[in-house]
């Protein structure tokens, strides 16, 4: 009788090396480990060919490792699933439970805007919204029903969150004020901690509004695209006039007065606006934003502002330069403010492993002026994507399930062999819909970018862990962002 021994093979991980330390990013779990030379040698040996455990042990001993050491290395790698029995199946995150409690509500207070940014996903060529015949401004009745829905659906959560959105959010400031008072009262009754944030184009800020935001610690994100000539390229009024000169003094005054929450800028990169470093330093230094984040415009291919491939490469190079700057600041114990890096580091630190790319339709929903519930603010007012209505029975569980089943990583076969999937999980549902007409389609046009970015941030994370681990403490409490 011949005994058959199953050979060991490599598990699923992404390797990186910083400052002569070897790291493993274990893909199915999201764990990051530093690996010893013996452990690393075992991996190299198994990469050449599958070996039975005793063959691997003999090979390690051959290479000068003590028997005990070698055995221990093999056992530890096996237990952490860095090496495994090849019959092992692929590990993907499970479906979240069916009654996952809500955490964040995005209220689109109006679908109207005083600007006409050409790339806008709400009004532009690729819009998903179907606002015809629907109210343009949210009413108190709808806002009340939305807040009640959040409170009723977030049971068990200690902290909940409301984000105000538009259109231009501040075109409906009276309702914003009303919601803050109403919701705070309700949350207090329920014993929940509630906080607020809003996104605005900044043009309608007034001293009265700023005072209110400060008083209620409302977080603010300003959509801005950088120095005047870049900002004014696409962020314009209906008559084509740029909005920079109007908003600049107002935003500066907001940043100066608002000391209860850090103020962030959100930049949309387009074919016309790609100077990441210049934009960052302008917003950070000229304006004093605490954080600046960037995202490429969401658009179908071939729009005038859609970023072409060579430009994506150029942008990535600049992202990289800025990220390296972040790293050096972090090692010196300083806060840099490039939020794309801090968001990714926060997720890597937690070791997050997503079943879905974001909270849309899961812990987060958006509600539009009509009361329609959407997976997130970007789908608001779209009949095709509505998941019920706050005035008529609330969330439609069947539609929610359909949306979530489609977006689950298990349904995205292209992603199953990708090391970036714990963080990416296929990418934004809205981006996917605009590109491929299917919210559950992986955003394959971004894969190179995402994998490059993930690898870069892993390296930065590893280097900070080696040189200034105390810097990572700030991520202990920080909730990974949507």
């Amino acid at each position, binding site marked *: 009788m011949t005994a058959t021994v199953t050979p060991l093979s490599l598990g699923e991980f992404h390797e990186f090396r910083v400052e002569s330390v070897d790291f493993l990013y274990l893909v199915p779990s*999201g764990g990051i*480990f530093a690996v010893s030379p013996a452990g690393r040698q075992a991996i190299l040996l198994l990469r050449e060919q599958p070996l039975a455990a005793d063959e691997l042990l003999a090979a390690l001993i051959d290479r000068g490792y003590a028997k005990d050491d070698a055995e221990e*290395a093999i056992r*530890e*790698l096996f237990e*952490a699933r860095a090496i495994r029995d090849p019959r092992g199946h692929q590990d993907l995150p499970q479906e979240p439970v069916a009654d996952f409690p809500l955490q964040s509500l995005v209220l689109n207070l109006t679908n109207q805007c005083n600007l006409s940014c050409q790339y806008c996903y709400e009004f532009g060529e690729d819009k998903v919204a179907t606002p015809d015949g629907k109210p343009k401004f949210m009413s108190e009745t709808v806002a009340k029903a939305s807040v009640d829905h959040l409170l009723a659906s977030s049971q068990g959560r200690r902290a909940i969150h409301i984000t105000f959105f538009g259109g231009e959010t501040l075109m409906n400031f009276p309702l914003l004020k009303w919601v803050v008072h109403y919701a705070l009262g309700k949350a207090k009754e329920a014993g929940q901690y509630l906080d607020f944030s809003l996104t605005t184009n900044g043009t309608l800020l007034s001293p009265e509004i700023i005072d209110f935001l400060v008083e209620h610690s409302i977080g603010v994100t300003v959509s801005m695209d950088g120095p005047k000539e870049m900002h004014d390229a696409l962020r314009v009024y209906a008559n084509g006039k740029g909005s920079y000169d109007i908003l600049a003094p107002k935003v500066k005054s907001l940043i100066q007065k608002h000391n209860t929450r850090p103020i962030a800028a959100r930049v949309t990169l387009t074919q016309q606006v790609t100077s990441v470093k210049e934009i960052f330093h302008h917003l950070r230094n000229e304006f004093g934003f605490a954080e600046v984040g960037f995202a490429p415009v969401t658009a179908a291919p071939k729009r005038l502002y859609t970023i072409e491939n060579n430009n994506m490469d150029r942008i990535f190079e600049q992202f990289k330069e800025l990220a390296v700057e972040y790293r050096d600041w972090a090692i010196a114990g300083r806060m840099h403010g490039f939020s794309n890096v801090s968001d990714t580091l926060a997720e890597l630190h*937690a*070791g997050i492993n997503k079943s879905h790319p974001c909270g849309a339709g899961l812990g987060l929903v958006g509600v539009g002026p009509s009361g329609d519930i959407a997976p997130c603010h970007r789908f608001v007012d779209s009949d095709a994507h509505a998941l019920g209505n706050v005035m008529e029975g609330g969330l439609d569980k069947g539609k929610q399930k359909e949306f979530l089943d489609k977006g689950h990583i298990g349904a995205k076969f292209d992603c199953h062999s990708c090391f970036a999937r714990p963080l990416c999980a296929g990418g934004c549902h809205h981006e996917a819909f605009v590109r491929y007409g299917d919210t559950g389609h992986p955003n394959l046009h971004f894969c190179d970018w995402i994998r490059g970015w993930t690898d870069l941030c892993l390296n930065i994370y590893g280097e900070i*862990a080696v040189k200034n681990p105390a810097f990572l403490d700030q991520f202990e409490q920080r909730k990974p962002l949507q």
Partner: protein
Amino acid sequence: MKHLKAINKKAQRIEQHIAAAHGDIYALQQGGGSPAARPHYPVGCSIVFSPGWEVDSAGGTAGLCQPAERDLYDCYVTCYWPAQVPDHYNNYPDWTSKCASATKDWRNIDLVFP
């Protein structure tokens, strides 16, 4: 762990998970187990003063502190050890269904042929 150093929070959880699995079964006389896992009691008849498959001081079963027939239940229901009786967990859940009181009805318990 010596060859893998946990860096992020998920890695720390994996480490704890592995350590916990190690603490599951170990030889007490070798001082095994983490202090956090102690005190550690073995389960089964030896700890609950069931007679076990034993005899009394006179060599019979009459003087045991519990009726010897009770052992059928200790081995059949509560014990993890493969004993000389059919197993309740997987294959013979109804083995004692005709036996309301072990000392009186034990003759109703049938043989099984696996």
